């Protein structure tokens, strides 16, 4: 198992994870904070990372898997360089968020939950991001864009397209 895992991820990433695990070892309630950090390190939480966390914290793998599949923030699939989250909270919905989703699906040629072929964007819908005064809203990474209309979408995306190294 170690062999396959280390082809995909670097030893440095695992070292970083082990340090996080060591911080929370023996502390009650450490699983979710460790998974948050692990997702930051690896970008997502594939099986080999789950196994490492389970062994490190001495909890059953089934529990780790159970927690990951319960919370929508944790992903078992790799995500694009940027995750777009279209807010579908009530305020955004009544101000036309559904049209924003449609415009993005058309522009990026993906459905919600999918990643573009070039790996740039993963399109997600989120629950309220708490910027209701600016509805409809979307987030790209930690940037928030408000007062959107469908025709502003290409312009917003342009800031991120082709920014890869």
């Amino acid at each position, binding site marked *: 198992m170690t062999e396959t895992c280390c082809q995909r991820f670097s030893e440095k990433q695992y070292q970083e994870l082990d340090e996080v695990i060591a911080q929370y070892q023996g502390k*009650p*309630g*450490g*699983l*979710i*904070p460790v*998974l*948050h950090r692990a997702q930051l390190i690896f970008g997502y939480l594939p099986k080999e990372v789950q196994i490492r966390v389970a062994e490190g914290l001495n909890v059953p793998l089934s*529990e780790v898997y*159970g*927690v990951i599949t*319960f*919370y*929508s*923030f*944790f992903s078992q699939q790799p995500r694009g360089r940027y995750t777009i989250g279209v807010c*579908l*909270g*009530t*305020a*955004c*919905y*009544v*101000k036309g968020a559904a049209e924003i989703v449609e415009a993005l699906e058309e522009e990026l040629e993906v459905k919600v939950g999918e990643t573009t072929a070039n790996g740039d964007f993963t399109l997600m819908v*989120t*629950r*309220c*991001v*708490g*910027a*209701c*005064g*600016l*509805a409809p*809203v979307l987030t790209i990474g*930690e*940037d*928030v*864009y*408000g*007062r959107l209309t469908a025709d502003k979408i290409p312009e917003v995306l342009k800031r991120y397209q082709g920014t890869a190294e």
Partner: protein
Amino acid sequence: MKLYRAHVLVCGGAGCISTGCKAVLDRFTNEIKAHNLEEEVHVVETGCIGTCDLGPVILIYPEGVFYKEVSPDDVQEIVEEHLIKGRIVNRLLYEQPASGGQIPYYDEIDFFRKQKRIALRNVGIINPEVIEEYIARDGYFALGKVLTKYTPEQVIQEIKDSGLRGRGGAGFPTGMKWEFTRKAPGDKKYVVCNADEGDPGAFMDRSILEGDPHSVIEAMAIAGYAVGANQGFVYVRAEYPLAVQRLENAIEKARAFGMLGKNILGTDFSFDLEIRVGAGAFVCGEETALLASIEGKRGEPRPKPPFPASQGLWGKPTLINNVETFANIPAIINNGAEWFRQIGTEKSPGTKVFALAGKVNNTGLVEVPMGTTLREIIFELGGGIPNHKRFKAAQTGGPSGGCLTEKHLDEPIDYESLLAAGSMMGSGGLIVMDEDNCMVDVARFFLEFTQDESCGKCTPCRIGTKRMLEILIRITQGKGEEKDLELLEELAQTIKVSALCGLGQSAPNPVLSTIQNFRDEYLAHIRDKKCPAKVCRALLQYSINSELCRGCGICARECPEKAISGEPKKPYHINQEACIKCGVCLEKCPFDAISLT
């Protein structure tokens, strides 16, 4: 502390950040340096000032002038005109939605003037990253007062006397919760702050954590002293990274100042805080689910009793209060229960923060005394409905609440009146809807939300809400029958009494309240197969206006279903049975002859 002749407050709330307030702040710092005003003018980045749709907003003191939609290019003019010559820059002033008249001063604008700020007392006024600014506004005075002058029992008595009720939704008396936790047997106890603000449309907890994190830290330490706990947790949603960051910073500062940690203020009371970040599960706002999540488990609720006050985190007595509830505590301790009781209504003393959003001119956060009417909030503070549209409904309580209509506009709002109107306070989201919003679609939206967020542990919520959603989808597609309404009501009542937790028990509320208040709209979908608000696409019809149609034939050629026919130079027709409502014809018609009804 240094004295300045003027202060420039730049809103650094989440809304203003998204409209570019950082660049405005940087420009101010540079311009003030360039004009050698560093010794005279102080620039402060504050938390949310409240008017989110006008961002970036700034306030200049001592005059209290409010500027909206300030861009970095406006900064030089503000510095040279306002700060140097003392002349107000008129073009950036707030305009009244009704009259269009300009109002320069913060405290003369209805949106601010009609507020009573207790929980938000420092939000938008102080820099949340500077603990001294909090202390200068009587911060940590209440903690010092209880640690040196009050017994824990006296603290609890003060909170009970104030009549403060939980601001997270259900309105349970806060003092009683404290007392139960105090009296519960156990050597180890916990204080938890529920900052898992999940109700879509509510963002007051976010603003408090981002704009005045110390008020929550101070209140939690007071609560720890009162109930006998030395450890607290703040459970924050992962969707609020800035709140987490500001809170982390504030906790560190509080520790450095001896307001958290061992022997607080030299007494033998010790208390410390940890932040736990959620991971995107709405149900974790339910207290037992939240506790499970802090313990590192799936956030599934469990039956109550036992209540968290007797068996909470890791089985120990645990006090759980919401962010806004905590933010009220230091003010109550400082000013006394009697003062607090004089604000608001008899059964619901104090104020409530509402997040105004949707179809209303001034969106943002407002804090008003309990008992304020919906009309005052929407039409006076909120400035009414944009684009001369008609008010249709106000949704309160998120997915657990309901819709209030025109007939509720003049009722004073408190916990009881909202329940009587078939809604609930919830966390204070208030979403205004106009004639363009379809209430059946709104009910469907909420059911889709709860169905998606249902944890699946109990059957009524997992399967019951699914069945309700299917019926609603059927109705919005024009396939509904009249008996569907009865079926919806029956399912709703069953789910309300049998679901395990608050999420399931309240999930049917949006459906029940819209059926009750907008039955005609449901019937229009069911009987006439029409959506009066023109939202439900399946019920809309494309038609060709024969007077405008020139018979060019473009629509017929573009129609993917060949549903349009006619002869050149004569009006064309749409075969409604073949039409799939894709809208291509409307888009392509060069003469605007095609309409949607």
